[in-house]
């Protein structure tokens, strides 16, 4: 029993990273119906930016986290402006292929620039273990969970309570009508990319700190899995993405704990197929009006 609970706790931490990433997918999809496959690469860039801010500028972890979130937000906006905006009136498949292209460009660009080797992420925060009853948690795990939750709540507040959030919701329902009401659609979309990218960068840095290892291809698998998480929760729905992330993290951990570690990816995709068959809109997929 104790082992089971410890495993669930392990799954929770893994899940919070998927959740952070899934939020970016879901927001971008919600607003312009684009699956932004370059999102996993923003996560990777976030990890590398953190690496440089801590190593080269000798910043502490939190200033570096903020800076790389800002940096990733800028990169996200630039990518949207250069790669997606010109295609906004094209078919959705064209935009999707462009997103895949951007993803390859970022991977290979980083490999060309820095080499393909794994880099060890600076351990900016001293590792500590806590024993809560029989459950063992490290300070870094707590940090991951707390930062993820804070960012998710902040995002929810931005979307629900601010003017920009209102604009995002409006654009997601009907971009043309929103424009007629005086909403600057382009700026709203840029803002969405900035938000999603900042969250991805935070996830990248947290993972770097947790596993102490970053490389240019690190975004591929988590990117795909958090996309699955977004679809699972109901793509376009923010709480759905967070839920989907946690579900996948838990599912993966449980699969390994049961001794099927070789099939953990297969189980994730099998779940996706089952959900799509019995509940095509995703777990929280009823709410159609309020998607962002």
């Amino acid at each position: 029993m104790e082992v089971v609970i410890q495993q669930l706790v392990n799954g929770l931490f893994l899940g919070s990273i998927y959740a952070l990433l899934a939020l970016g997918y879901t927001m971008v999809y919600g607003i312009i119906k684009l699956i932004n496959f370059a999102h996993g690469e923003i996560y990777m860039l976030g990890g590398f930016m953190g690496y440089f801010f801590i190593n080269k500028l000798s910043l502490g972890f939190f200033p570096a986290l903020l800076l790389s979130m800002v940096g990733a937000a800028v990169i996200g906006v630039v990518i949207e402006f250069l790669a997606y905006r010109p295609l906004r009136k094209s078919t959705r498949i064209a935009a999707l292929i462009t997103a895949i292209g951007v993803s390859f460009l970022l991977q290979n660009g980083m490999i060309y620039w820095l080499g393909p080797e794994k880099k060890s992420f600076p351990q900016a925060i001293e590792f500590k273990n806590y024993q809560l009853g029989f459950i063992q948690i490290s300070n870094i795990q707590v940090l991951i969970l707390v930062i993820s939750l804070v960012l998710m709540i902040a995002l929810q507040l931005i979307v629900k309570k601010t003017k920009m959030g209102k604009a995002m919701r409006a654009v997601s329902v009907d971009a043309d009508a929103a424009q007629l009401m005086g909403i600057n659609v382009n700026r709203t979309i840029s803002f969405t990319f900035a938000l999603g990218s900042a969250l991805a960068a935070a996830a990248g840095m947290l993972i770097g700190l947790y596993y102490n290892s970053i490389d240019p291809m690190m975004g591929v698998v988590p990117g795909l899995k958090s996309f699955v998480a977004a679809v699972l929760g109901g793509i376009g729905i923010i709480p759905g993405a967070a839920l989907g992330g946690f579900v996948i993290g838990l599912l993966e951990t449980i699969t390994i704990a049961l001794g099927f570690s070789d099939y953990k990816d297969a189980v994730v995709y099998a779940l996706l197929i089952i959900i799509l068959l019995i509940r095509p809109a995703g777990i929280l997929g009823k709410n159609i009006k309020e998607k962002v």
Partner: protein
Amino acid sequence: MKKFSFLFASLFLLAACGPAAGGGASGGGNKAEGDTIKIGMNMELSGDVSAYGNAEKEGITLAVEEINEAGGVLGKKLELIEKDNKSENGEATSVAANLTAKDKVVAVVGPATSGATKATIPNMTKAAVPVITPSGTDDSITVVNDKVQEYIFRACFQDTFQGVILANFAQDNLKAKNVVIIGDNSSDYAIGLTKSFKDTFKGKIAKEETFTAGDKDFQAILTKIKDLDYDAIYIPGYYAEAGLIIKQAREMGIDKPILGADGFGDEKLVEIAGAKNVSDVYYTGHFSEKAPATDKVKPFVEAFKKKYDKQPSAFNALGYDSVYMLKQAMEDKDSADSKDITAGLASLKDFVGVTGKMTMDKDHNPEKSAVVLGLTEGKETSADAVNP
């Protein structure tokens, strides 16, 4: 990308057919022409395991420079043709074809890893050009279906041997009775290591867990084994995942000895795991300054330090030895034609390298002893020579 490399591979294969067929009449293989002897290097200079490839390249380059400064081989200078196989099997195949057919090399060093080396076997055999892999330890590189591969040799020991050494080390030196295995299930290398360990180890395997290359989270596996009764953890796998397992295990409070094979032998292991976590970790090495196998070690270490300003690793040493093995084979047969080099390598006897004194057995594997290196806080603190 994959598709393209296959396309290129098949183009090179086609290109290789022409000259090879023509040469077939005169017995195949490439001959040394002009006043240089061309040898090829098929290495993982970029990609997943580029750390190995680049390390071996340093050793190979040093050996070639030394040989040329000392007058070359048979009065001719060695010319090294370097090619990158990007750590991809398909790419390694096309590099092999390219080196043998286009550059007409008489022998090839590399690839560094087992999978890539195996991928080059058909091309090398067809071209009748010998290849030495400095560090491909998988058994089935040199012997496939009980048939010895005529042109394939290695400078390192093979996996069965490493598994046997580690099982003996666990029993005799660590006095382990129960062992947990956490093995990479996606590479031939690790699967071979697991098998030979299990065949030799007389104690109990308390639990066997598997992972796939590229995995990062091992909390679930480690949580499962944490409270089991065992004396050591055996991790057949490469440094990237092993580093993460060591880090996560130590942070979780698992302080049992950790054993691994030569895939641990990279400084990245310590970087990824964090130096303070790498204690009570043991792995088989091909080379150690602390337990020098021959008197060639000292001059090698000095020359290496002078050229690269750092300590040589086992992979530097194996690359270095591979080139000298070729030199010895050429001198033994007094010829630099690939057929003769092949015969020379097959009958190599009492060759003194920096990784040991070797004699090639009938299966093209060098017979030599292994060193088990022990790490404390990331530093090499013990070295035991272990015989099979």
